């Protein structure tokens, strides 16, 4: 089903969530990236980053906690190599961006502005301390350094959702992406389970929280495009996000469990009847 996301036409309402397609082509053999409405890249930073110490990914009941540390080649290498490879698959590419400061976000956006194939920019506003210090300033910087026809989406966590969303929309965000992984500290019986100690919880464990965020944002901002995500494993899960008010949905953790999940979720969504008996 086609959908309009802040002015960009998507061929389908199911997207790949940021960070869950590797560099992109890794996922291609299991579900063609062009079949998704769009692929949101891992968060691209100004300089190359090696990622965080191991362990980076642990299980939690019905969820995963990751502290990958945003590994990546930096925006220059991304723009020269990864982005063209992604575009060559026929996928619509939404580039996630991250920086230590608003100025760093701005430089990443400036470099992306010179590249072909960026359909939209998603601003990753998560931070090791929980959230970027000044989300509105970050969004403002990204918006003013991004071409007018390229939407900017603010990806937020559930904390202080409406106030943060209002500030980001006021700073120029064209839409919201809800929700980011939720800060979490998984422990073993002897100490932290993650090398970085603090990670982000994703998967079905956060689905009701994510649904609440989408629903709450939809009530507050009736006309704002919203990408919903948080533990979507099945077509009915995706339908619940759409019912809560999402314009489109992003699948993430499911792809780490089953790289072919995207194709299955799209098929299940298409097969769903208008009434979902399993809806919460």
């Amino acid at each position, binding site marked *: 089903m086609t959908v309009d996301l802040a002015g960009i036409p998507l061929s389908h309402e199911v997207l790949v969530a940021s960070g*869950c397609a*590797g560099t992109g082509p*890794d996922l291609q053999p299991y579900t063609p990236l062009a079949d998704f409405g769009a692929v949101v890249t891992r968060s691209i930073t100004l300089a*190359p980053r090696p*990622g965080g110490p*191991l362990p980076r990914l642990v299980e939690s009941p019905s969820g995963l906690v990751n502290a990958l540390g945003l*590994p990546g*080649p930096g925006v220059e290498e991304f723009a020269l190599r990864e982005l063209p490879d992604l575009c060559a698959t026929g996928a619509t590419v939404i580039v996630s961006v991250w920086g230590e400061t608003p100025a760093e976000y701005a430089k990443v956006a400036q470099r992306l502005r010179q590249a072909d194939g960026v359909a939209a920019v998603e601003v990753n506003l998560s931070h090791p301390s929980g959230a970027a210090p000044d989300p509105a300033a970050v969004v403002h910087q990204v918006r003013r350094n991004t071409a007018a026809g390229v939407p900017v989406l603010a990806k937020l966590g559930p904390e202080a959702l409406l106030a943060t969303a209002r500030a980001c929309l006021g700073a120029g965000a064209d839409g919201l992406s809800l929700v980011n992984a939720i800060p979490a500290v998984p422990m073993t019986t002897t100490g932290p389970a993650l090398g970085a100690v603090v990670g982000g919880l994703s998967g079905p464990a956060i689905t009701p929280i994510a649904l609440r965020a989408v629903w709450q944002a939809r009530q507050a901002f009736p006309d704002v495009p919203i990408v919903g995500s948080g533990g979507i494993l099945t077509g009915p899960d995706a339908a619940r996000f759409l019912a809560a008010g999402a314009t489109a949905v992003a699948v993430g953790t499911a792809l780490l*469990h089953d*790289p072919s999940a995207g194709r299955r979720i799209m098929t299940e969504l298409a097969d769903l009847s208008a009434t979902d008996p399993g809806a919460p």
Partner: protein
Amino acid sequence: MTPGAQWRAKVLARRRSGRYTVLTVTAPGVADRCRPGQFASVAVAPDSGLLLRRQVWLGASSASGRDGGALELVLDPAEPGAARLADSDKGALLDVIAPLGRPFSLPREPLAAVLAGSGSAAAALLWLAAALGAQGSRFTFVHLPPAEPYGPLDARRLAADVWAPAAAEADTLLAGLAAAADVVYSAGPGTVLAGVAAAAGATPHQAALQTGLVCGAATCTACVIPVRGRDGVSRMVRACADGAVFNADLVRWDELGTIPPECHDGAPA
């Protein structure tokens, strides 16, 4: 790396081998591509709440038969997800991706080898042993502590000598055996393989690294390790895609689990 095939594999048989469980599953069109040292990633049923796939060593493959090919999956039920998989009844369907990773390289000519493995990873070495034996190579098999040996009877049948040293004796034994061998093959978790690498000294050494939980499609970057390239530059590489078998001389064993400072420009390649 060629992407692994993903299919619904039917459990044809289940047997115990000590504390380990071996599942024989259908693998039509896949079994003939699998080699010793490669592994499968297997999803645990989502209703378990366990969302990461399990790295499962391949113990054998058969490209013939009624089902068009079969694989042996070797599981250590000490881990909860593997325990769920090990409970699979005959006829159950499993979500399998295989073959994954690079296999062991076989020597061009018969030679003297040491095979040293720990836990279920030793299954990869026993499969390799059969290939080495068919080729005329002589080898010694070492069951490394602390895990219960996998397939001790098979090892005795295939190898010229079999050892199961105590932890305090393993390094000395391995160093002596490696010094008299042309090549060392090892398989197991990083802590065990680091010891084998130190003991192997200058003897060429291929090491199959067990990482446990995997995404299966080389997308998550949770299994990166620091490896020195032939250009002298160290990079973080994905054990699932660039291993699981490594040239042990190039792995920075002492720094597994860390990001060495000079690797900071080395995003997983």
